[in-house]
């Protein structure tokens, strides 16, 4: 019998917790029906989640690999699968398969480096996995700066964790910003790219960006003007995916498939690819 393990066949997962993060983002905690973590992953890798009859889609795994009990996915309501997930209650079963893609080089290129994370909106979801991994193995890395912004205070993802855990860590500097003035907010106001420039980071850092394309574009310009090199800046891409294993043919940028060669890319690598993402 040659019916080996089939990568397209998922396993069953159970939603054990639903956290309302923002008006349109919820964080789902998922384990297998016998209460275990479905599979191991590295920061930056993704998983395909599906609801039979609704569809399957790729999501970044927002929990850190150092969490051995469960996986978490922070999901913004914006399409069929995500709309359905947002109505799901605790106890709902879904399917999942993975992990997919190349992770951030947390165990090699990042080691010994000062790290600068820049995120906008739901773009914090994939970075949270890296940030918590680096916080867990704190001694391996230098300083950690986190610049995170969103439309309003209510749109900041993982706000509680950021304030209570990240901001209180030694050597971790959190810089939050929101787009417009808001009652009850005495922090920074302004767009992420401008804030990054204002903060004027030293170039002795490795930067990781994730957010809306426009934020990436202007933040990148800002970092370059501060003297950062392309080889110092990473991001994670997202394109339409179906198989997640480099066969269905739709998530390519030039000769690279985002599902298996990415989603993590360094900007000098992206530079070699056509501008089609």
């Amino acid at each position, binding site marked *: 019998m040659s*019916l080996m393990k089939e990568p397209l066949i998922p396993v069953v997962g159970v939603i054990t917790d639903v956290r309302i993060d923002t008006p349109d983002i919820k964080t789902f905690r998922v384990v297998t029906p016998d209460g275990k973590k479905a599979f191991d992953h590295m920061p930056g890798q993704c998983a395909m989640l599906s609801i039979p*009859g609704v569809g399957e889609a790729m999501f970044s795994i927002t929990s850190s690999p150092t969490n051995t009990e469960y996986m978490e996915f922070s999901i913004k309501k914006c399409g069929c699968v995500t709309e359905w997930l947002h109505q799901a209650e605790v106890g709902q*079963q879904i399917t999942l398969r993975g992990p997919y893609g190349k992770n951030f080089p947390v165990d090699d290129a990042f080691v010994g480096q000062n790290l600068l994370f820049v995120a906008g909106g739901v773009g914090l979801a994939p970075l949270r996995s890296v940030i918590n991994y680096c916080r867990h193995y704190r001694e391996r890395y230098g300083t950690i700066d986190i610049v995170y912004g969103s439309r309003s205070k209510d749109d900041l993802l993982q706000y509680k964790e950021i304030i209570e855990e990240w901001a209180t860590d030694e050597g971790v500097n959190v810089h939050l910003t929101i787009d417009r003035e808001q009652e009850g907010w005495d922090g920074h106001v302004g767009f992420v790219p401008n804030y990054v420039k204002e903060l004027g980071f030293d170039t002795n850092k490795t930067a990781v960006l994730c957010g809306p394309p426009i934020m990436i574009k202007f933040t990148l310009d800002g970092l370059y003007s501060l003297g950062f090199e392309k080889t110092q800046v990473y991001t994670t891409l997202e394109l339409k995916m*179906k198989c997640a294993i480099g066969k269905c043919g739709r998530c390519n940028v030039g*000769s690279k498939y985002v599902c298996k060669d990415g989603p993590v890319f360094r900007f000098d690598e992206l530079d070699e690819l056509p501008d089609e993402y």
Partner: protein
Amino acid sequence: MFKCSIDSLDKIFAEISKNATVYLPVDNDDGKAVYTKWENGVKWSNELNTVKSLKDFFFPQVENLMEFKVEGKNIEIKDIRTESEDFVVFGVRACDVRSFDILDRVFLVEPCDSYYANRREHGVIISVACTRPSETCFCNTFGIDATSPNGDITVWKTEDALYWNANTEKGKALLDKLNLDECDDSAVNEQKAKTAEIMKRLPLASLTTENFGGGKTDELFNRPEWKTLSESCLGCGTCTFVCPTCQCYDIKEFNNGNGVIRFRCWDSCMYSDFTKMAHGNNRLSQVERFRQRFMHKLVYYPENNEGIFGCVGCGRCLAKCPISMNIVKVMKTIGGND
């Protein structure tokens, strides 16, 4: 090498049919060659090639992948895969045989696609050397020798005889069972030489891949000609459906009242929703979609696969495109040897 008379072909098919289903090109009511199951009375087509390649046998146009039972909040996943039947496809041309080298490099690399792998394992390909190549043929451009196709077994057809040679273990095992008479290869060599002469005179014989291949993205991606070439493209996807190497697929679901079936079906990079997702579409116009198809076959695929091109020169897209746009025109225009 082994030999049999053409008249004994039915007897041979009958013998193979004892252990495997035999398919071969047969003329349908419209006079088009279509792979059809052999049974007594079914006659091998005289057409050069089939309308669609034999891609379907290994990567069907639609296939069910798995089934889900949904009850309340609970989901049960059912693996509905079954072992493929043993089958033999006879009459496959050199171009189509090569298409499997290309598809294997997609489906059989880790993580291996078990649906495709299973059919590859159970399928035997018997190729037939070309003697009357058509004006749309350009397999030669991709280094394919139409006079000596690969496959598990190669067959050469002369006026009154068929010559058989096994190329793989699978092919040898099958050929051994047929008890054909051994012979030398003089008749085959004579025919090969004759066909090679015809190949040289084909209208597309001088088409070259010279300006294509891995590492050419920068040079070719932003060429202004993509716009004019794609201008009249209807985005119908016919080229991708008749293409023996196009392997893009979609995964979809339907509820049959008893559960949810997740299936896959051929998809086309020429379609406007191919890359459309909730947050946008990275190939918004037909220029981008059209460019993707040809860049994939001529640059991206070879870049990832040791220089092997993703086209076999079968000429189906030349014959079938409703607006007569095709890879040859693209190669001539973009490659600069028009």
